[in-house]
Structures are given as C-alpha cells and as structure tokens.
C-alpha cells in the first residue's frame, strides 16, 4: 500500500492510504497517526485519522511543508511493517430499531429518498438482498464494528463492520441530504454505520435511535465527565437491539444519570482476525459479556 500525500493549502497535509475502504487501510492510518503523535513534531497542531486516510494540520511558521512531508514519508515504511494489533475497548450500544422519531423524520423527507414508498430499513433490506427488515437488523447487529473515524460533527463515530467484504452491508445515502436528523440516530451510508451525536442535517439512512448519549459538552453524563466525546478511533462496538420498554427504562436511567454503559478492555490483532473472523468475533463477545 503506497500512501498518496497531498498538500491541503499551506496548513494541512492530506494522506490517502487507499481509495477503497478496508481494515488494512484503517489500521495503517491509525498506526501512522499514532506514530506522528508519539514523534511530537514541532508545529503539528491537529492529527486526524480517518477511515482509509488521515490529515495533519501544522503551522508553516514552525515547520516547512516539505520537511513535514519527508518526516511523514519516513514513518510510512515502519507503519506498514507494524503487526496491526491494538489494545482497545469493546462496548455495547443499545439500539431501538424502527423507533417512532426517526420514522416521523424519514416520512417528512420521503421526496429526497431513492424509494419514497418504503422506509429506510425496508429499502436497506431490499438493496442488500435480504428478505425482511428483521433479517437486515440481524445482519446489522449480530457482528461487531470498528470505529474507523470520529468526526463530521462533535463525537460522531463512523463504524465499519468486522465481516468479510462479501458480507458487508452497503446502502446509498439519501439522494439529497435532509435538513433534520434526530439526536442519537443510528444511520447508514455507503459501507459505514454512524451515530448522529447532535440533531442536525444528514444524508445517511435512518434505522433507529440509541438512548445512550455519546457527546456531552457540559460533561455532566457520568461516563462523559473526563472526555466530552465517548468514541475514539479503534473502539469496537456491538449493537444490542432493544424494545420500546427497554428504551424507556434506559432513557430514565440516563436522565437520572445512573445509566452505566457496558465497556470492557479488549485486544485485537488484524492478522488473527483475517485468519479466523468468526472465532475472533466470538472471543470479543466473550470479553464484552465478561465470560
């Protein structure tokens, strides 16, 4: 994998690891950005890993573009030789699929959708060749996901499913973006799932909502007091389908600030994963459920 570098004006260097999405490209981006962080290069002000690329913002009064580019290129070889393993976290995110709030919103924006006669989930099931919405929800929630990027807006995770390429779900974005998306909507666009951290515009298909806040600028939520954003690139997520009753109970717990998310330490090796995907995911589930 040879990285394509490009100057983004006079304050950014953009690096495309690969044009297409893959876990290999994501791991290269993550390990390179970690290496840049550790190198403590003078003048570097922002280090942003993305799905299959990354971006460095720097102060050209402190380091020359050419010098920074050479430093990044010198790290490229070491990153591709690294063993792509990771100490990370696995967490369970409850999802109330087919909820009334995203349903109300998707009905309001039907004329911007590929299939105005179906819901987003019905459309997603059909374009992925699955028989029913329930089959799609099963495919979406049965295997874990990598947080492969955090961004767009504050704390929003992009998630990439940990299954072989032929099992990846793919759903086009809305034809024209909506001007509204409920807060904490679980969305889907291209090969990525996401959680909308705040209410606002969005183009991803809407499948459900989580009761669990993932961004808190006031740092009041018990598990967001140290960092206002829950997710970091490299986190592993497992969706847990929940009922309306469970959603209401979780929401009540969140409001009383006694909701406790399930988050465990985990380790991951890309080589082991590629050798045995089902086995690796099964082990991750054991870690998540404390067995």
């Amino acid at each position, binding site marked *: 994998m040879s990285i394509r570098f*490009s*100057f*983004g*004006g*006079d*304050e*950014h260097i*953009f690096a*495309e690891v*690969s*044009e*297409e*999405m*893959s876990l290999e490209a994501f791991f290269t981006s993550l390990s390179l950005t970690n290496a840049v962080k550790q190198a403590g290069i003078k003048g570097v*002000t*922002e*280090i*942003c*890993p*993305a*799905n*299959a*690329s*990354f*971006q460095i*913002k720097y102060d*050209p009064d402190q380091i020359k*573009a050419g010098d920074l580019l050479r430093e990044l290129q010198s790290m490229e070889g070491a990153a591709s030789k690294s063993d792509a393993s990771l100490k990370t976290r696995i967490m369970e995110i409850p999802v109330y699929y087919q909820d009334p709030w995203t349903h109300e919103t998707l009905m309001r924006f039907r004329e911007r959708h590929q299939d105005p006669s179906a819901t987003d989930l019905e459309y997603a099931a059909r374009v992925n060749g699955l028989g029913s919405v329930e089959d799609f929800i099963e495919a979406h929630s049965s295997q874990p996901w990598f947080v492969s*990027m*955090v*961004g*767009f*807006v*504050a*704390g*929003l995770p*992009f998630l*990439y499913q940990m299954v072989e*390429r032929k099992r*990846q779900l*793919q759903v*086009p*974005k809305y034809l024209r973006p909506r001007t509204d998306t409920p807060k904490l909507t679980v969305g889907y*666009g*291209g*090969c*990525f799932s996401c959680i909308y*951290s*705040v209410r*606002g515009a969005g183009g991803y298909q809407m499948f459900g909502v989580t009761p669990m806040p993932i*961004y808190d*600028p006031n740092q009041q939520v018990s598990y967001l007091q140290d960092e*206002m*954003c829950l997710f970091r*690139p490299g986190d592993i997520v497992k969706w847990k389908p929940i009922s309306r009753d469970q959603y209401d109970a979780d929401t009540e717990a969140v409001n009383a600030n006694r909701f406790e998310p399930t988050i465990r330490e985990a380790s991951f090796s890309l080589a082991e994963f590629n050798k045995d995907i089902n086995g690796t995911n099964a082990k991750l589930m054991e870690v998540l459920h404390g067995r």
Partner: protein
Amino acid sequence: MAVKIINPGLSTTVQDLGRPGYYHLGIPISGGMDRFALRAANLLVGNDEGAAVLEAVFLGPEIEFTQAATVAVTGGELPPKVNGAEQATWEAFAVKSGDVLSFGYLKSGARVYIAISGGVDVPLKLGSRSTYTLGALGGHEGRALKAGDALPLGPSGKGRGAIPAALRRGPGNPAELRMLPGLYWHRITAAAGKQFFADTWKVAPEADRIGYRFKGGKALDFVPRTPPFGAGSDPSNIVDACYPYGSVQVPSGTEPIVLHRDAVSGGGYMMLGVIISADMDLIGQLQPHSPARFVEVTLDEALCARADRQAALQRVRDHLKL
C-alpha cells in the same frame, strides 16, 4: 455583569481565536471568521489580540453597558451608534454605564467584530471562549446570544486610536480567493479544472460559519472510474475522509462549498483543493449574491501571501504603538 443584550441581531456569538486540538473528535477550531478584524478590534481597546469579542453577521445587536468601557467595531461597514449618535468604525470610543450601543445598516462586508475593553469573560471550554453552536459548546451557553443575556467582562487595559483605511483588509469585487489545487483534483477533467478557475461564481444564500456555498459556474466533468469499495456511486463520492479548513468540496460536481471555522471535520465528497490561509478572513466578509473567483496558486505563492498578511497585521500593531 457588564453587558446586557437588548436585541441580539441576526446571529451574534462570542468568538476568540479558536479551539485548536480537537478536530480529530469532530470539534472544529471555531473563532472569528475574519481573524484580522478580530485582532484589530482587540488592539484598539487595549485587549490581548485573542480576547473574546462579539461577532455579528449582517445585522448588529443592541447592547446596554452596565459599566464604563472602551469599544471598537471592525470588519464590515456596519455603523455603530452610542445612544443613537453614530461612531466611526475601526476606532476606539468610550461608553459609560447605561449607554446603549446599536447599529445602522450594513454598507459593506458581512461580519463585524465588537471588542470591549477587558474582553467577554465567558468560561473557557477546551481552552477557548469561542461558540460552536452546532455542538452547543463554548461561548454563552453554547449558543448565539438572545435578548436578556448578560455577559461579564474581564479586567480592562487602556485602549485608544484608529486604524486608517489603508491598513485595513477586505475582499475585492469580485473577491479573489486563492486556492492550492490538490486532494482529489485529479478526479475532474483538465477542461473542467480550467473552467473552474475561469468562471465567476456567486455566493449562495447557504453561507454560514460552517461553510460558504458558491453558485453560477459550470458543472464539473469527472474522470470516469469504477467506484472504490465504500465510496458510493456518485462520481464526487470518496470513502469518508478528513476535510481541511478552507477545503473546496463539490458535491455532484455542481456547487463548490468552502469549509470555514466551524467546519464539519470530514465526509464523503471529493475536494478540489484548499483556499490558502491568507484568504480565509476574506470569505467571512462575503455577502450572499456577491461575485467571487477562485485563483490558482502554488504553495510558494500561498506562503508569500501568508507573510504579506502577517506584515499587514504588524503594520496595525506598529501604527497603534505611535
């Protein structure tokens, strides 16, 4: 409390020089869109250059002072008034407790910077007082100001002087926005690239702190491709990536969007390149429907322009020391 908002105008927010270091979490730098005007306003009232000020767009707010202060208004030409009496822009003036600052109609530009001696002393959030409204972070309660809001001021220094027109900076007509091509420039045809720089564009009504949209140029032709896995089927789609500040994305090849201080940090549209740092301030002073052109530059030219901009700021500092 030292400042009371009687009428907030269209959208008035607390801004300083921003909140670097959190873009990897999707939290943008924020801060004044026209940094030159923000720094100049602070210098005029004796503040640190990066003190928090009020940024107002198109319509000025109405503000009552509950203590004496020095005030300066820079940026667009929006005439300030004290108790109805017009004051000069780019010049320090004094207000007493009980005075009301209001504004006439906008004559040019888009945003004004209202610096008050002592600076607006809202709490620091992640190292900055800037308002990021989309994330409800910073400023006054994470939002644009409303009638009835009261804002504290910090301890004040001594302000004085004026900045003559020759030392100010603003966009021309048409505005010329210099751009370094790059990123996904290779996705469009050579003819489309030539046309992009030849066209005169107009600022669209969708222009805010997140980004400015431009209309009226010819749609771009893309180089044919098989969509990479995960990118999406539109020729302007990419696997979601980071967006630089000032990057020029063109969804479906039709209307370029230049991301600004409250940028979305990433997404799935190809970008043609990035507006150079020296010209970011100018975008903040563009009104909807005003004409603009994109001008191709090299990295060396971008760095020269950056040095010119720093020299212009130094001339303001030197002038005010006299």
